[in-house]
């Protein structure tokens, strides 16, 4: 399957990446080649085959609902060099 430059541009936007025109051009060519080889899967008959998303079969693993110590806020803030305010990392206005 051939990808278009517009598709790559759109997907990059969804993934929050700015790509240069050169990258768009290059990735479009490379991804077309990659997806052509991935399209090989279409030839496998998977009628009635279950999906395996987790190989050991564990499901809905939960631990007992007891309070445990968590990481210290000050320690966590210390690893960031960003500007802080009132015990939080300051970010730009989002709304």
């Amino acid at each position, binding site marked *: 399957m051939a990808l278009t430059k517009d598709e790559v541009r759109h997907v990059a936007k969804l*993934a929050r990446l700015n790509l240069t025109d050169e990258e768009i051009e290059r990735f479009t060519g490379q991804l077309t080649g990659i997806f052509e080889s991935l399209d090989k899967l279409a030839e496998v008959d998977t009628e009635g085959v279950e999906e395996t998303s987790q190989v050991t079969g564990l499901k809905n693993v939960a631990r007992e609902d007891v309070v445990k110590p968590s990481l210290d806020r000050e320690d966590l803030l210390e690893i960031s060099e960003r500007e802080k305010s009132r015990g939080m990392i300051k970010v730009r206005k989002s709304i």
Partner: protein
Amino acid sequence: MHQTIATLSQQLRNGTTSSVELTKYYLGVIKDKNAELNAFVSVNEESALAMAAKADDMIAAGKGGALTGIPLGVKDNFSEKGMETTAGSNMLKGYKPPYECTVLMKLREAGAVFLGHTNTDEFMMGSSTETSVFGSSKNPLDTERTPGGSSGGSSAAVAAGMCAWALGSDTGGSIRQPAACCGVTGLKVTYGRVSRYGVIAMASSLDTVGCLAQSPEDAALILEVIAGHDEMDATTPDVEVPKYSEQLNQDMKGIKIGVPKEYVEGLSDEVKKAFDSQLELAESKGAKIVDISLPMTEYGLAVYYIISPSEVSANLSRYDGLRFGPKSDAEDLVSSYFEARTAGFGDEAKRRIIIGTYALSAGYFDAYYKKALKVRTLIKQDFEKAFEQVDVILTPTVPTVAFKTGSKGSPMDMYLEDIMTIPASVAGIPAVSIPYGEYDNMPLSLQVIGPMFEEGRVLGVAHNMKN
């Protein structure tokens, strides 16, 4: 002084050497060789020597085990409290984890000595360490060649004698392929056998934690310490951890070794001949060679290159540049994400994020991701059927030997490097790579694959093939 863990731990016990002495020795080798090999991306002498002094106290008090006092290299995606841990990415430069991963906590408790962090491809995506922000590592056996990847810093470090062993992670071959390139032992465990809590993720349904070591026996000693259920990692089943090191001397007589035709039919004549000599060796030890077929093998690569980038795109979406990573001065929040991510991720990371985002996007999800999960079931069943007939499966780990750095022209060429390691990853089963013989002056490799949670069996066969 560079010896196996089995030998070193005896020497530490009988007083021939001390952990401080051993640690100073390895730090010296790192100092001598790292400028050329670039295997370590950071070294912490002070904390290593402090850990060694503690280990010597433990040994003097008759405490500890096989790993006590033994220096190791830590792949740069294992969160070590207070030590920069970057996964080879600009996105995490300067990041010092506020907590420690389970594996390092266990090793710390066991009295192991952390020398420093070893190089990896960016976010573990690559087979050569060429995508690391720190630049590529060199193969100590031939510095024009790659040490493999992504755990290439670890394989180079062990092969060059810069540490007794090293931690690695394997998603599609990232322990076994570098082990094969550098002529060391590399163990990839059953999915969930070793906790991944605090290990920076690549593809969550495939990632495993293992080791690069000097022998299958050493790998067994390491696994005894790091394996097991962890309540901080919900993917670790509560399966007993056996004494792997006591399962090594099992008799090869009567062991049935399957050789899948799909893995050997494309080999070059020279490699095929060398591989056949190993089959003869196994037969001479009493094993029975059985020709088998794993018909879904040819779809392994496609399954992997859909599942893995899809999960990568989800895992790497957490890096928003708000706490660390490249700083953005953009006016609004969304633009700051774009700027930080664009500056933080390298070429290969961006490529895989795009592949994954595309495969998961509306209209393609069923055709790619869902389809891949179904074919994954068939690959897993292939192995299950094979293990009804045979005890282990034997293949080469890589089609030839370590390639020259910079010689892979396209991403697809690089992806093909993992063609023989990927199926076991997709099925979540254990496999070990061991070196043998040579071709083009470089070590060749064997891969022993076993059923789920049969690490002891694959290590035992590997051990017997070497001894």
